[in-house]
């Protein structure tokens, strides 16, 4: 049933693919953090067309599958623009863009969590708009959402196997390749599951600890 020797033999390959999985996740997370913030700003814009279009785009991206979006980036964009995108970048952009719409909501809740009096105080103290954001609003809006952002990082990590569809050689595709050579699927897929579990479980414990510590700091 379970062949220890075989499992031991393929483990190094899977572990080195795990590095790729983690790297894609981190790159995509950075993309999502930046685009998510831009989307959150654009959705709050006073300029109605911009905020409407932004909300429409967010809605569209959130209501369509990541897999299809990645296919679109990888297969369609080269046809439309004439530039072909390597699988890695298509994966990073696809995953990052998809979750930027979720993160924009997280930012929004953080920004709305700042009491109105803070805005009024900034106006009373004659702060410029940029100063208000930089030194008053964001320093109060971002810390409470850090644990939520951490949870999304874990969610994104677990979405990376989808990227094997565009031949990005992460853990899932590596396991698939091993299976197609050895015709044994039990050990590779079980190991992939175990590796995913270990990392996301540890990460979620860390996020929980962070959350507790931050609640303590804020005196809750």
């Amino acid at each position: 049933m379970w062949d220890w020797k075989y499992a031991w033999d393929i483990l190094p390959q899977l572990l080195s693919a795990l590095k790729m999985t983690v790297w894609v996740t981190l790159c995509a997370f950075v993309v999502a953090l930046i685009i998510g913030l831009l989307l959150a700003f654009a959705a709050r814009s006073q300029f109605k067309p911009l905020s409407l279009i932004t909300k429409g785009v967010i809605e569209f991206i959130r209501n369509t599958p990541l897999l299809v979006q990645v296919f679109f980036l990888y297969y369609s964009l080269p046809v439309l623009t004439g530039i072909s995108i390597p699988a890695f970048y298509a994966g990073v952009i696809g995953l990052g863009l998809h979750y930027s719409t979720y993160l924009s909501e997280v930012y929004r809740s953080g920004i709305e969590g700042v009491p109105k009096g803070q805005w009024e105080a900034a106006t009373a103290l004659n702060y410029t708009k940029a100063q208000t954001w930089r030194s008053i609003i964001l320093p109060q809006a971002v810390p409470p959402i850090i644990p939520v952002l951490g949870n999304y990082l874990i969610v994104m990590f677990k979405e990376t196997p989808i990227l094997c569809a565009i031949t990005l050689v992460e853990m899932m595709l590596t396991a698939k390749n091993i299976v197609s050579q050895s015709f044994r699927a039990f050990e590779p897929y079980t190991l992939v599951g175990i590796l995913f579990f270990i990392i996301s479980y540890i990460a979620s414990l860390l996020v929980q600890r962070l959350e507790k510590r931050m609640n303590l700091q804020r005196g809750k």
Partner: protein
Amino acid sequence: MPDSWIDFLPTLLKGAEITIVVAFFSAILALVVSFVAGLGRLSKLWIIRTLTAVYVEIFRGTSLLVQLFWLYFALPFIGIELPKMLAAILAIGLNFGAYGSEIVRSAVLAVPKGQWEATVALNMKPWQRLWNVILPQASLRMLPPFGNQLVELIKSTSLVYFITMADLTYQAMVLRNNYISWTTEILVLLLLMYFVIATLVSLAVRLLERKLTAGRL
């Protein structure tokens, strides 16, 4: 060769049918599992609490695609061969059930303590407490998060493409293989179809929510 993008519609609609069937049955499984596991985690018996917690952690800690591959490609090696449809429904249902159980658990915990005390004071049987007093109140709180999960579930049915089930995504990719020059039209159409399905479902959930919470919350 197709004359226009309309020629792709019949094939795609056939795929949409499979997508909807998979989504429907896995949503039902996920709902049932959510309640069983969510209430199980609040059980007085430690063995039930532990078992449900282990289930939830395992399914939340690994990835849906890994679970699908495991059920469909790995299980046959220990003598269990599942048909594609069953593997798909099990993977999606059990995965979303694990997330859903957290919704049920927190909604039940959010019912004010006085309600529990009142059921005891009224000498209700345990199942009466849950069924007549606690769950009706908790269910209203569960609706919005369940609605979001349902949209996520519909999106995730696209993963059955990987086990070559002829769903919407699979049909579209077969079409793309046959008519490479129409790649963009096919993929845009595919995105739009998912968007329409997901938007209709989330509108329906919102309507239901408004109807049920009218005059309550």
